[in-house]
């Protein structure tokens, strides 16, 4: 059977069935609800097992704990109730929740899972008020407020990762925790989770969890150390727990079938019961069983790992054989496959990350960033695109959900135009997905940072845009988010930072820039501050990593991963085949353009001193309009994104400096550190905390997103893409997000599509200064006017999907600053490749104190 048998790659004839469409509508109406099931169970069983106040929690302790929780979770067959926003508040509504997939990540239709051992206590102050949040409210009942306040949160006041780190660290560590809690220099995500990885589902699907248990038993008898024996026992415990959970679902489904009057419903429930008795315990024998295995394992993984950046990987590869076998045997039609995936996508989106009210300003609107990867090449470098690739693409297109976050791989030397054309068409149809990744550049980056060629070819996308080998790379790609303009700030003010107050020395004194006589001196000063900033962030990541090793082993994820079973070591102890820690840099374009401005105006022309520049920054450019005009004109001051060696040289210097600073560092799991350029919504959040910068950005304004050039200063699309593509792939081994905005309707649809494809191909093409081509690109294809209308009347645009910087989000859920940032992004006309100019959009109503939704 050939990999591609579908005649129409777009599968245009396949539409949403009425039942799935209705469930999707219910999904959009439902507000997230706080789920107390996990926090209550983990608190209860941790108390019973005496796990509070311990010096260490072993992997076996965790294994037994998670097994108990799995055995005691309520087996949800289908949800029929949720809450929706009404003028008088959040009110319950009912719906038909029939789905081929039972079980759920939380006890709610759209739940907010809480992890009290990590960050859940930050919700404590707003338990009574979260239902009234202006944007992204969470429903919680009075009884659930009492449960969290009395039966859960008090037990975790000190048994919580940051406090454990504070207690175990030295004074320097405690200072770093203080810096972290100021939010302005860097964010570390280990207080919330590690997650950010792709499990290996192939074994669970093809062999079943019983085989994993048998394997663990066998290895335990051969194990050389007690620690290994404990590990293998822990694997057995959690696998038994997952099987028990599936059996309870089967029993509940059978009981519901027994009492169902409607014969169709009875048959549906009986089928659920049959399937859940088989899988995930035994090998999947059909496409639906394969999907069910993945779904049940996925819910279990979330029990153990917070829902941030956990990604599903290359599902079109893992499931293709089951799909093809069913289609060939005429047990499954393409329509049915699309529908099954539609139901699964809704299930995957059945939870949202917990974000406290003001966290909305940093992460607002973000889903769990559950990336799925399609297409690409296989481990031998051959074309891996298959029918299921197109089936998944169609299911994404029809559902248009924030999660899962679809990422498509394209290899310029392997794939044909028809495939790329279909990917671009999906972007036009959905306005924002999938993100496109250039296999040639990604594989080069991964092999340069330690993957073998075969491992690199088998990469999947994690979270937003980060690449890593599928099912074998424990890379915590979002370990650190570094606010690069803070390093610039420290260089400009000799180790001081305006956010902390100028009297306080924060970092190193690298010299008063007003005394510098050359641009090189300034760059050296900036380099010193960048290295200091990375040093602080990495040292804290190491401390938190060691705390994870002592208290948060991950037996469920370890069982579904390449490496831990072979080594007898949990993932957190370094058991994965590949390890790393990832750093995301925020503000590269702003720092590069600031260097361009300083180099040109303070050291190049001789008309202006750096002391005067500092004065302009202190005054937020008040009285310096003439300087602003000069900085913002790319004809007078070079700007990153105009394909000139001078303007792009500083960006390259920054990226090289950062890469070289971390590439030889080893983390607590034995992996390396990697640098990437994706910002989620942090370019808005961090921007709010930083004063005026030399690139003409005023205090509090947004930074540029991802690796995208600053808005409004790159008139030519081709030049912008060429500048970005100049960054060598190995400098960007933790991924990058290039956010482009296209004018959507430019006349004839076919011509528009052809131009779209041409730009992507041009960006991915090899060139002399970057033989691999550009690495990643993602789009917003919504008109300026539509965005403005969406701000005015969010209810009319409640499903408007946008690419933020990596992940997809619903525009209405974004905070006002992010909405403004997206509206102000440079918009290119596809027919001319030139920027369309608009006046900067005013900050939407609600500003910093609320939301307009």
């Amino acid at each position: 059977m050939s990999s591609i048998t579908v005649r129409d790659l777009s599968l245009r004839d396949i539409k949403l069935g009425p039942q799935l469409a209705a469930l999707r509508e219910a999904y959009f109406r439902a507000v997230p609800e706080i789920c107390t099931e996990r926090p209550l169970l983990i608190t209860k069983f941790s108390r019973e097992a005496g796990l509070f106040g311990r010096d260490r929690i072993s992997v076996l302790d965790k294994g037994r704990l998670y097994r108990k929780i799995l055995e005691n979770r309520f087996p949800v067959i289908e949800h029929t109730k949720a809450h929706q926003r009404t003028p008088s508040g959040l009110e319950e509504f009912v719906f038909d929740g029939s789905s081929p997939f039972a079980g759920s990540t939380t006890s709610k239709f759209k739940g907010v899972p809480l992890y009290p051992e990590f960050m859940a206590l930050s919700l404590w102050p707003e338990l009574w008020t979260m239902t009234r949040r202006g944007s992204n409210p969470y429903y919680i009942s009075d009884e659930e407020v009492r449960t969290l306040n009395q039966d859960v949160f008090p037990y975790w006041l000190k048994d919580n990762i940051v406090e454990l780190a504070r207690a175990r660290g030295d004074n320097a560590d405690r200072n770093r925790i203080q810096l972290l809690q100021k939010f302005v220099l860097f964010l570390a995500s280990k207080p919330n989770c590690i997650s950010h990885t792709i499990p290996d589902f192939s074994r669970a699907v093809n062999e079943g969890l019983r085989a994993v248990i048998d394997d663990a038993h066998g290895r335990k008898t051969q194990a050389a150390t007690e620690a290994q024996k404990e590990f293998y026992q822990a694997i057995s415990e959690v696998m038994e727990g997952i099987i028990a959970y599936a059996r309870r679902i089967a029993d509940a489904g059978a009981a519901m079938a027994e009492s169902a009057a409607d014969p169709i419903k009875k048959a549906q429930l009986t089928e659920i019961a049959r399937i859940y008795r088989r899988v995930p315990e035994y090998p999947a024998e059909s496409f639906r069983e394969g999907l069910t295995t993945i779904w049940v394992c996925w819910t279990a993984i979330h029990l153990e790992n917070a829902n941030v950046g956990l990604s599903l990987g290359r599902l079109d590869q893992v499931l293709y054989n089951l799909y093809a076998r069913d289609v060939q045997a005429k047990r499954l039609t393409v329509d049915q496959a699309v529908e099954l995936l539609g139901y699964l996508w809704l299930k995957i989106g059945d939870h949202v990350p917990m974000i406290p009210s003001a966290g909305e300003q940093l992460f607002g609107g973000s889903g769990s960033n559950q990336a799925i990867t399609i297409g690409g090449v296989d481990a031998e470098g051959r074309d891996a695109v298959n029918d299921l690739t197109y089936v998944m693409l169609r299911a994404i297109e029809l559902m248009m959900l924030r999660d899962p976050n679809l990422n498509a791989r394209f290899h310029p030397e392997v794939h044909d135009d028809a495939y790329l054309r279909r990917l671009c068409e999906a972007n036009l149809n959905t306005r924002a997905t999938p993100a496109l990744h250039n296999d040639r550049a990604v594989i080069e980056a991964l092999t340069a940072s330690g993957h073998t060629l075969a491992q690199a070819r088998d990469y999947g996308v994690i979270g937003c845009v980060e690449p890593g080998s599928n099912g074998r790379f424990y890379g915590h790609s979002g370990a650190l988010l570094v606010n690069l303009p803070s390093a610039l700030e420290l260089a400009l003010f000799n180790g001081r930072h305006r956010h902390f107050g100028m009297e306080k020395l924060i970092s190193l004194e690298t010299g008063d820039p007003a005394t510098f006589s050359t641009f090189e001196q300034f760059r050296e000063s900036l380099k010193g501050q960048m290295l200091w900033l990375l040093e602080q962030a990495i040292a804290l990541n190491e401390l938190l990593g060691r705390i994870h090793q002592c208290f948060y082993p991950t037996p469920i994820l370890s069982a579904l991963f390449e490496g831990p079973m072979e080594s007898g070591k949990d993932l957190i102890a370094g058991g994965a085949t590949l390890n790393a820690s990832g750093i995301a840099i925020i503000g590269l374009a702003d720092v590069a353009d600031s260097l361009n401005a300083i180099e040109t105006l303070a050291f190049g022309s001789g008309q202006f001193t750096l002391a005067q520049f500092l004065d302009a920054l202190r005054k937020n450019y008040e009285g310096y309009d003439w300087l602003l005009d000069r900085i913002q004109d790319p004809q007078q001051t070079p700007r990153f994104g105009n394909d000139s060696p001078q303007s792009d040289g500083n960006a390259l210097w920054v990226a090289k400096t950062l890469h070289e600073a971390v590439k030889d560092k080893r983390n607590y799991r034995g992996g390396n550190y990697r640098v990437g350029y994706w910002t989620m919504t942090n370019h808005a959040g961090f921007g709010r905390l930083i004063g005026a910068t030399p690139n003409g950005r005023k205090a509090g304004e947004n930074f540029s997103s991802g690796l995208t050039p600053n808005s409004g200063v790159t008139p030519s699309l081709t030049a912008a893409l060429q500048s970005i593509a100049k960054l060598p792939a190995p400098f960007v081994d933790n991924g990058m997000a290039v956010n482009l905005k296209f004018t959507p309707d430019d006349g004839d649809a076919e011509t528009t599509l052809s131009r779209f494809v041409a730009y992507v191909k041009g960006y991915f093409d090899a060139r002399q200064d970057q033989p691999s081509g550009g690495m990643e690109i993602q789009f917003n294809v919504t008109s300026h006017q539509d965005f403005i209308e969406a701000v005015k009347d969010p209810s009319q645009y409640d499903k408007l999907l946008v690419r933020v910087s990596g992940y997809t989000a619903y525009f209405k859920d974004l905070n006002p600053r992010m909405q403004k940032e997206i509206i102000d992004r440079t918009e290119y006309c596809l027919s001319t490749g030139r920027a369309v100019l608009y006046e900067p959009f005013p900050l939407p109503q609600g500003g910093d104190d609320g939301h307009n939704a």
Partner: protein
Amino acid sequence: MATTLKKFALRTFSRVFPEGTRNSLHRRLCKPLAEQFCGKVTDEFLEVLLRGMEASFCLLKGYRENIEGFSGTYVFRTDDGRVGCSAVFSDGSMDVDPKPRAPYEVRVSFKDAPALWRFLLAENQDILDSILANDVDVDGNLNYIYKFGFLARDLQHRLGVA
């Protein structure tokens, strides 16, 4: 600040009198706090808040349940050092000390009374937001502040001014 004797009297009162009478006294004692909760913030906000909490723990069993089994020392001070005090919780009771104590679980330095009010109570702003705005500096275990934030808002809820 309420003295030990006052607290004893309030606890005795709460045991002897029916719920309606208790609630009536509670509302009267907490009237200045209710006004501050409604946004009429004065320089005395911290003192009024702590006094209101102290009285509420004595009078309201449900509110007192929030601190059963809970121990912790909070230090509050203004950036300029003009205002400073401690709130000490110990298994169901709360004491206010007009001096900063050490050691503490958490120390909160705030710019002024409105900044502290926003930090603890503003609808669209919470603890993280105040830190972002640099209005408040927290040294120590943030979870204790999260709990204190809940205690303040729970009282607001009970006074019907949330």
